[in-house]
């Protein structure tokens, strides 16, 4: 009984906290409230995962109205993993945000900032909790709108244009999704995802269903920055406030990947996917995304921008897993949702620390900084290894499954593309590592007044190292994650690959 209320609490608590945060005086109180909420949600999400890890499902009917007429919250292993991820990232980012945000945002805006942050949090959690597809759209828009606002608070004025561009593209994407929902509603008369799945089975051949599917997939693809719909991402990650880059890089696109998984496999089912060109399209776009985005990352002058392109490449890996549509493939996608959040979160935090100290994230301004900031440098080194996929780190686990999925289906070009993606990652990560390690002949003076080439304060380092150590931990102890993933894949109805 109590588990059902848990799932509701995950959405209600931050929702209530958001307006309260707006009313608190500027200072540290709003931050404290957000911190407490995020930690509470983390505990709730962990509890939730433990309940559903073996295949149970939590169901909560909003307002007591039974599904499929009422809105239902339905938690199984798949959304529990993602919900835990979102809560965990928020719980780790907020301690980091204390100093980082204070430096980047006007004092008068602090309470509003944390209020909108909580709204974004609500939106993301809501996406993971709900079992109703229109409700999903609503939460998607909640999280997106608040994200646009958060991004626009960045120091650089280009944050404004980045937020505007994201808003335009994101709204188009969400509207496409809405069209897709409408078309499937026309065909089935229901909005409940489980019910949709059952009602779609006998009519999978209808053209309307195909059209609805196409609209939904394209809409979600815009949100998850699948090549070539990724154009908003580099600007957003580069110019948003640092803590927001950390948070969004680790959650927003991952939640979109979850939505794609849920819609493609949970609502439309694996059988449907094989009669559409969707899986081949995912494979093709995934491969192109991996290669082009990684190559683009290499030529960047700004570290944040480089990491943004790297994120596009990593998301392409997740899409590749979906394209294989096998147990190995989906396992790779889901595991990488988790692992990528860890590694990118750590990397953005580390870059944020550098920005906090020297006010810039350009390569040429941080030459030799590794010697004055050894802990940050070590963190970048280890997180970079995870990104490359060195064994002993979380990134290796995802790569392993992805490669096995490719080899199983004898998709040799794709396997090669995945390996080349790793090599390109070596190049751009090593560019960063080299820059930090080796001194340059002349030292640069940076325009901003703040410049202090020394190690970061503890409240910034601790969350960073927590994520870094998580990278190593989840590279070795994978029991819980793999169990949850196996349950999730099973529930999505995907079986082992057969010839």
């Amino acid at each position, binding site marked *: 009984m109590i588990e059902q209320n848990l799932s509701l609490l995950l959405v209600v608590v931050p929702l209530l906290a958001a307006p309260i945060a707006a009313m608190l005086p500027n200072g540290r109180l709003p931050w404290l409230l957000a911190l407490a909420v995020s930690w509470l949600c983390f505990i709730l999400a962990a509890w939730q995962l433990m309940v559903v890890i073996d295949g149970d499902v939590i169901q909560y009917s909003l307002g007591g109205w039974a599904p499929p007429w009422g809105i239902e919250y339905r938690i199984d292993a798949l959304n529990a993993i993602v919900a835990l991820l979102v809560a965990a990232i928020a719980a780790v980012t907020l301690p980091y945000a204390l100093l980082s945000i204070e430096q980047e945002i006007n004092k008068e805006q602090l309470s509003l900032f944390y209020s909108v942050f909580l709204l974004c949090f609500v939106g993301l959690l809501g996406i993971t909790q709900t079992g109703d597809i229109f409700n999903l759209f609503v939460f998607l828009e909640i999280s997106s709108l608040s994200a646009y606002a958060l991004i626009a608070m960045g120091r650089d004025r280009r944050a404004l244009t980045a937020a505007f561009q994201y808003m335009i593209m994101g709204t188009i994407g969400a509207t496409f999704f809405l069209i897709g929902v409408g078309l499937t509603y026309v065909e089935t008369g229901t909005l409940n995802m489980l019910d949709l799945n059952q009602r779609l089975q006998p009519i999978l051949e209808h053209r309307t269903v195909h059209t609805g599917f196409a609209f939904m997939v394209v809409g979600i693809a815009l949100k998850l920055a699948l090549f070539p719909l990724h154009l908003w991402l580099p600007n957003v990650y580069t110019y948003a406030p640092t803590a927001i880059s950390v948070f969004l890089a680790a959650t927003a696109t991952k939640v979109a990947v979850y939505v794609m998984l849920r819609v493609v496999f949970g609502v439309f089912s694996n059988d449907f996917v094989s009669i559409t060109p969707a899986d081949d399209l995912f494979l093709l776009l995934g491969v192109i995304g991996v290669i082009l985005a990684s190559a683009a990352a290499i030529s960047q002058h700004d570290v944040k921008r480089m990491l943004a392109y790297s994120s596009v490449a990593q998301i392409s890996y997740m899409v590749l897993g979906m394209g294989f549509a096998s147990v190995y493939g989906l396992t790779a996608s889901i595991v990488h949702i988790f692992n990528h959040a860890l590694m990118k979160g750590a990397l953005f935090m580390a870059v944020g620390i550098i920005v906090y100290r020297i006010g810039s994230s350009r390569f040429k301004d941080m030459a030799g900084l590794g010697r004055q900031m050894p802990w940050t440098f070590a963190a970048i080194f280890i997180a970079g290894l995870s990104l490359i996929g060195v064994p002993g780190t979380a990134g290796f686990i995802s790569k392993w499954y992805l490669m*096995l999925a490719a080899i199983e289906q004898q998709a040799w070009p794709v396997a090669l593309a995945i390996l080349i993606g790793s090599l390109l990652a070596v190049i751009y990560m090593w560019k960063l590592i080299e820059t930090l390690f080796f001194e340059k002949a002349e030292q640069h003076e940076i325009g901003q007044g703040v410049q202090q080439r020394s190690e970061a304060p503890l409240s910034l380092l601790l969350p960073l190292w927590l994520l870094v150590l998580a990278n190593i931990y989840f590279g070795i102890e994978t029991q819980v994650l793999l169990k949850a993933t196996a349950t999730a894949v099973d529930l999505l109805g995907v079986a082992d690959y057969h010839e």
Partner: protein
Amino acid sequence: MSDTALLLTALCLPLFAVLGITLTSRWPNLREAVTLMSSALLSIAVFTIYMRFSGGAVFAIDIAEPLPGLMLRFEIEPLGMLLALVTSTLWFVTAIYAIGYMRKHNEENQTRFYALFAIAIGSALGAAFSGNLLTLFLWYEVLTVSTYPLVAHAGTKKARDGARTYIGILLTTSILFQLFAILITYSVAGTLDFSDGGILAGKLDPAWAGLLYALFIFGIGKAAVMPFHRWLPAAMVAPTPVSALLHAVAVVKVGVFTVLKVTVYIFGTDFITSSGASDWLIWFAGATILLASLVAMTQDNLKLRLAYSTISQLSYIVLGALLATDMGLLGGTMHIAMHAFAKITLFFAAGAILVAAHKTEISQLDGLGRQMPLTFVFFTIGACSIIGLPPFGGMWSKWYLAMGTLEAGQWVMLAVLLMSSLLNIAYLLVIPARAFFSQAREKNAYSGGEAPVSCLIAMAISSMMCIYLFIYPEPFYTLASMLVKQAP
């Protein structure tokens, strides 16, 4: 102490060393004592393990299960035992050497140096004791990344470029080829455990065995088979103790060790012979042996010449593996030990010359033997062992390798081995010859004394080992024979 506890202690000792070194960074003498003590303790621990192992004890530990069905596993077998013995004893010897070298050379960042050194040795040890291919690959990669800062230590542009080549080639080969090969092996065999007789026989179509084997051989970049050998000369920008222990011993030996492990325990020598997997790869090994020797002759920089010599010698071991015969394996395995002791002596000497006389090029060494007689005597001993002359240990491994080529009917390879020995004489012995018998050129005249004492002690130990191993090739011969006996 129980077997398991002993093994865990040995594996964790380098970790504690790192801790100790970072904590005592402000007191250099104390810090160096930590390194010395840790390496001494490790040598004792590994030797104790050897005593128990040769008495029949079985050491196996499962640490974790990162992937379903694939453990992080440590298990001792003869090859790994041999590598562990070589690495741990030579860490101790190098520690003695490094103290004199780093201080005389006024190196910066010495704490970072010693700490990373310990991590690298730990990884080599982890690789030696790995019980399956996944664990081995993990330590292989950790070794690569932990030695990067050591290669880049000097912080100069030259160091940066050298380190870039180093990590570039090693990571590219390991990700593009080796990881690919491991994944294919896992898909085909369903396991990655090391087993007598290999895990692929009967599961892999023999037609593909050659391709998979090639992916492994080229993927194990640390074995420096051409054309993926350039990282080794590039790594010579590192301080000499690094070049000595890591790039004459630990890193490269982990490379050929992996080749041998894959040959014996993944493929199985029978499967290799029956499928003809190594037929065309043997030419690459042979070519590397000869070409590297030829290039070595053209190098004036002492460390570079030694680097190319190492590339050539490594392919001796690779050849021994590829031949997949009893004698070949015996020779190749023993050469891991013989070459390690000999080459480290040569590198020690090179470093001593650098640090005492500030000379790096061979052409500058004329007549130096008169000022640094001991150094050059040790150099000669090491060189003779590499060439394979009695009464030095290298003779045994060369002998068995030659026998191996005969056993496999590879006459061309026999000729390659003989020719290579001649080339070795040409490019190695000429150095002490000129040092002792030529006149020093006026402008380069050096009138100082010998190398620092600790360097001399280290060189003495390693060169004496070369002679000792000729008379008593135990425990390396024992271990190599054990390997051959259990590999069907």
